[in-house]
């Protein structure tokens, strides 16, 4: 078990280092940073000054190691746009995105797993087909459109929920639902496929031969074996939600990491871009690590390997 964790942790570290290099290279490839910082009215002298002040005249490897060393010690540089430390910006924005992602994932799991189980138990029935169709529709619906529709119905017409902002906890419900919709189809189909396979297995026949209750057969014996791919994909989906909630953050006026990323990319605020990419990469690898650990808890055979 410890060896397993150690191998995964080393792998995760290597992934983060690779992302670090890629993120740095990409920002440098996207044009002359000094020119974009200077703006359209800057003279060539201004640009030369900027280049010198920001250290952009140094060789690229030197710039990289300088930045990496600072990042390792927690200093992610200063934003040109906000004239504030990047780490402060992230600290301020991250909780919003995390709360949004968690509510999205929670809603997605609470919907997808029960529906997937029911679908698997009634495989081929009308109910199964209806659930499959709803999942398909969910996947086909663009999130900005769904977000606006929900705002119009539940925010404006029924006035049940706030339409934007997060002054109270229920502000997370509508954006959470929209985020969840994109994750539900994959999770639902995985749950269904896994449960169909598990329910037709020999050990389920044994469980039935033992006279166990349907609840115990389905929820204890089958679900645990069907859960592993669902856990892995749920981790990836949460990563998507945290990194890709730009549209939803915009629709619901939530100033999270997604919004920050979009803003900094469009204004070429490269210290922020680099830091956000690095942060998301770390979140992704951490989530994958957590999923691997959860799977090792679920399946004793993985612990041995």
């Amino acid at each position, binding site marked *: 078990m410890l060896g397993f964790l150690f191998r995964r942790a080393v792998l995760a570290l290597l992934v983060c280092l690779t992302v670090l290099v890629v993120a740095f290279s990409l920002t440098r490839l996207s044009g002359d940073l000094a020119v974009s910082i200077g703006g359209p009215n800057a003279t060539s002298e201004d640009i030369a000054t900027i280049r010198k002040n920001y250290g952009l005249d140094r060789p690229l490897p030197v710039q990289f190691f300088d930045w990496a060393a600072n990042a390792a010690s927690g200093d992610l540089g200063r934003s040109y746009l906000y004239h504030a430390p990047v780490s402060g910006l992230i600290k301020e924005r991250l909780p919003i995105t995390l709360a949004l992602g968690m509510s999205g994932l929670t809603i997605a799991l609470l919907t997808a797993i029960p529906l997937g189980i029911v679908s698997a138990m009634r495989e081929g029935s009308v109910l199964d087909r209806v659930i499959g169709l709803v999942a398909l529709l969910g996947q086909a619906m663009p999130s900005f459109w769904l977000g606006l529709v929900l705002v119009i119905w539940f925010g404006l017409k029924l006035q049940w929920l706030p339409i934007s902002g997060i002054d109270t906890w229920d502000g997370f419900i509508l954006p959470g639902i929209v985020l969840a919709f994109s994750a539900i189809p994959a999770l639902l189909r995985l749950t269904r496929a896994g449960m169909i396979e598990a329910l037709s297995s020999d*050990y389920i026949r044994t469980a039935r031969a033992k006279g166990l209750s349907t609840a115990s057969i389905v929820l204890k014996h089958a679900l645990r074996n069907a859960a592993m791919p669902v856990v892995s994909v749920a981790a990836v989906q949460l990563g998507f939600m945290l990194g890709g909630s730009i549209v939803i953050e915009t629709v619901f006026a939530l100033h999270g990491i997604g919004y920050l990323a979009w803003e900094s990319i469009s204004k070429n605020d490269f210290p922020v871009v680099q830091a956000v990419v690095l942060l998301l990469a770390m979140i992704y690898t951490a989530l994958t690590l957590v999923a691997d650990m959860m799977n090792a808890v679920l399946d004793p055979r993985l612990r041995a390997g």
Partner: protein
Amino acid sequence: MTKPVLDIVNLRTGFSDGTAAVRGISLQVARGETHCLVGESGCGKSVSALSVMNLLPRGARRSADVMRFQDHDLTRLSERDMARLRGDKMAMIFQEPMTSLNPAYTIGSQMAEVYERHRGASRAAALDRAAQLLSRVGITAPGLRLAQYPHQLSGGLRQRVMIAMALMCEPELLIADEPTTALDVTVQAQILRLLQALQAELGLALLLITHDLGIVARMAQRVSVMYAGEVVEHGSAAALFAAPTHPYTRGLLGCIPIPGKTPRDEPLGSIPGTVPRIGQGFAGCAFRDRCAHAAPACGGTIPDQAVTPAHTVRCTMALP
């Protein structure tokens, strides 16, 4: 004869695609008796057993004139009431010990839950009982085994665990579906000896499904030979081995080499042709295409004929 533990008359099981897998079999198993159900793959042995347990796959239907276990009419019981009997009064072990245990739970947890479910026992009491049964089936260090997972055990050990698990609630009837087919020959012998010993000790009614006539000779008091969903010959093991009457039974026995009796250089007996697809069913004898004695009468309905009062055969040759 005292009232049998399991009494089946005219059991029919069909699948949703129209296949008539079991076409009217009758059999009885008495307390302390081993009844062997013999036949080739696909003849309906396992489906018959699953029909008794009500463990058939979805879409399959069973019906019978009589299907009685103790005082329970199994044709009338709801699935809920069947579940109450299964694992408690009637238990079953399967051919595939490698996949029949849940990989995600410990042996102890899987054994204990049967006792918790049917006896309302606490986890501690159930684990005690499980440890007791593991030693009874010849597993050393039961305490250690209870904490292990199925993948840490060999096939023979897993089948012992399955047997111990089936005996948790002291069932009256044990159905063993090819319990040794997937095991090494030496382990096979151990498992069979164990089943015999347990049967003698607990007075189990044992319905043993096998394709191996060596096992039948060793274990059975009664034998039913199945072919294409029907019982073609039935009788005491002694009568059946002494005077096999149905051509199929004779063919099966002819396939077994007997040391000292079967001549060395002669080819071993075999039954020509292949097992027919059962499909919707047959008119007349299903074996007649492979039978050396086939006659026009074989296409009609053939009633069971008594060779002796306890030995019946379904064949035109036995007609008076």
